[in-house]
C-alpha cells in the first residue's frame, strides 16, 4: 500500500506543477496559433507576473486573490504593449526576424527586472497558514488546493471565451485564416493584441501561483518553466488549446514521477526527452492532426 500512497502523492504534486505548466503553455499555444510565433519572452512574462503578485502582497498588503487579479491585468497589458512595440512592426517580416526579436524581448525583460528588483531571489510571503487537507492517506496542502482551484476556473473561463463569445470566434477565425477573417470585418490587429493580453494574463497567474507554491522568485525564474511549458505545448499539439492543458498536466505528472521514483536530477532531462520523442514520432502533438490545416 505504501507504493500506492506514494504514487498518488506524486500524482497530486505532478498535477500542481502541471497546472502551472499548462497556464504558461496556453499562452504559448494561443500566440503561436494566431501569429505563428514561438514567443520566447513568454517565460519572462510569467516572471513579471510573479513579481507583480509579490509586490501586491508585500507592499500593497493585498490578499492572494486581489493580488492575482492585479497581476493578471497588469501583466496582460504589458503583453499587449510588448506586442504593439516589438512584434506588430514586424508583421510582414520574415519569421526568423520576429523570433530573434522575441529572444531580445526575453533578455530585455530579464535584465531590466534585475536592475529594478535586484537579482537576489525573494521569499514569496506565505499566504496561508500551513493547512493540509487529509483525504484518507493522501495530503493536499492549501497551496495545491489554490493551484487546482484557480487553474480550473481560468481554464473554464478561457474555454468559454474562445468557444462561445464573439471575440473568441474572431480569435479562432484569425488564427485559422487571418486574411479571410479580415474579409469578415474583423480587426485582426485588435484580436492579436487581445490574444497577447489573455496569454500573458494566464502566464501571470502561473507566476503568482508558483510563488505561492515554491515561496521563492527571481528574475531568471521564467527560463526553465518557459522551456518546459513550450515542451508541454508541443506535446499537446502547438496551436491547440486543450493540447496545452493536457500537455502541461502530463509533463507535470511525468516530472513528479521521475523525481519521486527515480531521482530529481533526471527531472529536467525527462521533459526534454519527451520533446525529442514527440518531435520524432508525432511532431503535431497528441491533439494535432497530421495534415496541416493552413495552406
Amino acid at each position: 500500500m505504501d507504493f500506492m500512497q506514494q504514487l498518488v502523492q506524486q500524482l497530486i504534486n505532478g498535477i500542481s506543477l502541471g497546472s502551472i505548466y499548462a497556464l504558461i503553455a496556453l499562452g504559448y499555444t494561443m500566440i503561436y496559433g494566431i501569429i505563428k510565433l514561438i514567443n520566447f519572452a513568454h517565460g519572462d512574462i510569467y516572471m513579471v507576473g510573479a513579481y507583480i503578485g509579490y509586490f501586491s502582497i508585500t507592499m500593497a498588503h493585498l490578499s492572494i486573490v486581489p493580488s492575482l487579479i492585479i497581476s493578471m491585468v497588469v501583466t496582460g497589458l504589458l503583453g499587449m504593449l510588448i506586442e504593439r512595440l516589438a512584434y506588430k512592426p514586424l508583421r510582414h517580416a520574415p519569421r526568423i526576424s520576429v523570433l530573434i526579436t522575441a529572444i531580445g524581448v526575453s533578455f530585455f525583460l530579464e535584465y531590466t527586472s534585475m536592475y529594478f528588483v535586484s537579482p537576489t531571489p525573494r521569499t514569496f510571503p506565505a499566504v496561508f497558514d500551513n493547512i493540509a487537507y487529509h483525504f484518507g492517506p493522501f495530503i493536499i496542502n492549501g497551496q495545491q488546493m489554490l493551484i487546482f482551484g484557480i487553474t480550473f476556473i481560468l481554464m473554464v473561463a478561457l474555454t468559454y471565451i474562445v468557444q462561445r463569445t464573439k471575440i473568441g470566434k474572431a480569435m479562432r477565425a484569425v488564427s485559422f485564416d487571418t486574411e479571410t477573417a479580415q474579409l469578415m470585418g474583423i480587426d485582426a490587429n485588435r484580436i492579436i493584441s487581445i490574444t497577447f493580453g489573455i496569454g500573458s494574463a494566464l502566464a501571470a497567474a502561473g507566476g503568482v501561483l508558483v510563488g505561492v507554491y515554491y515561496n521563492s522568485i527571481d528574475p531568471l525564474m521564467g527560463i526553465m518553466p518557459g522551456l518546459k511549458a513550450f515542451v508541454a505545448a508541443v506535446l499537446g499539439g502547438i496551436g491547440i488549446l486543450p493540447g496545452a492543458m493536457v500537455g502541461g498536466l502530463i509533463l507535470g505528472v511525468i516530472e513528479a514521477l521521475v523525481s519521486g521514483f527515480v531521482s530529481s536530477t533526471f527531472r529536467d532531462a525527462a521533459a526534454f526527452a519527451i520533446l525529442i520523442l514527440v518531435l520524432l514520432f508525432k511532431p503535431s502533438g497528441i491533439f494535432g492532426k497530421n495534415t496541416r490545416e493552413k495552406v
Partner: protein
Amino acid sequence: MGTMLKIDNINVYYGAIHAIKGISLEVGEGEIVTLIGANGAGKSTTLRTISGLLKPKSGTITFEGKEIAGLAAQDIVKAGISQVPEGRRIFANMTVMENLDLGAFIRKDKEGVQKDLKNVFERFPRLEERKNQEAGTLSGGEQQMLAMGRALMSRPRLLLLDEPSMGLAPLLIREIFSIIADINKTGTTVLLVEQNANMALSIASRAYVLETGRITLSGDAEKLAASEDVRKAYLGG
C-alpha cells in the same frame, strides 16, 4: 442609377512585381459587372485591393462617393462591400453556423441578422440542414454556398465574387450563377471575377477583360460575348 464603385488608375505591387498597371473601372448601382481574364491576369489582386487586403501604390477607389483606397479591410466591410474569396476560404474547423455568425461580425442589429440568416437558409436550404456540421466536411458546392451565405450576412451593398465556379460540376455552376443573378435582383450590386467567361457574360450587363495587369477590352456583356477577339481568347473559339 449612379456609380457605386469607381476605380481610377490604380497601380498595385507585390514587392517588385507590378501586378496591376493602371486599371480603371466602374460598377453602377444594381449592376452585375464581370471581370474576366486568364490565369495570373490580376483579377484576384483587383478584388483584394478593393477589399483593402492590398493597398494601391497610386490611384483612387471610390465607393458611394467616399474614398476607400487605404482603409483597413474591416472598415471596407463596414462601408458595405463584402467578398467571396477565391477558393472559398471557409473556416473549415468551425461549424456552418459559426461561419455564418462570423459573416455578421460587424453587425449590431440582432433582429436584422436573424432575418438575413433566414434569407440565407431559404436561398441555400442545404446550409440549414447542415448548420451544426463542421464546414470542412461540406462538399465543394456546399462550401461555395456557405462562402456566399457568409458574405451576404454582412448585408453588403456591393458583393465581390472571385471565381465562384472554380472546381464545380457544370450543373452546379449553372445553379450558382442563377443564385448570383437572383441575389442581384434582390438589390445587391455584384462585381464578378471569372475564368468561365461564357457563364459570366451571360448574367452580367457589362464586362472588362483583364490581361497581365491591364484592361484591354470593356463594354456591354452581350457585345463582348459576340466579339471575335473575346471568343477566340476566352470562349474557346
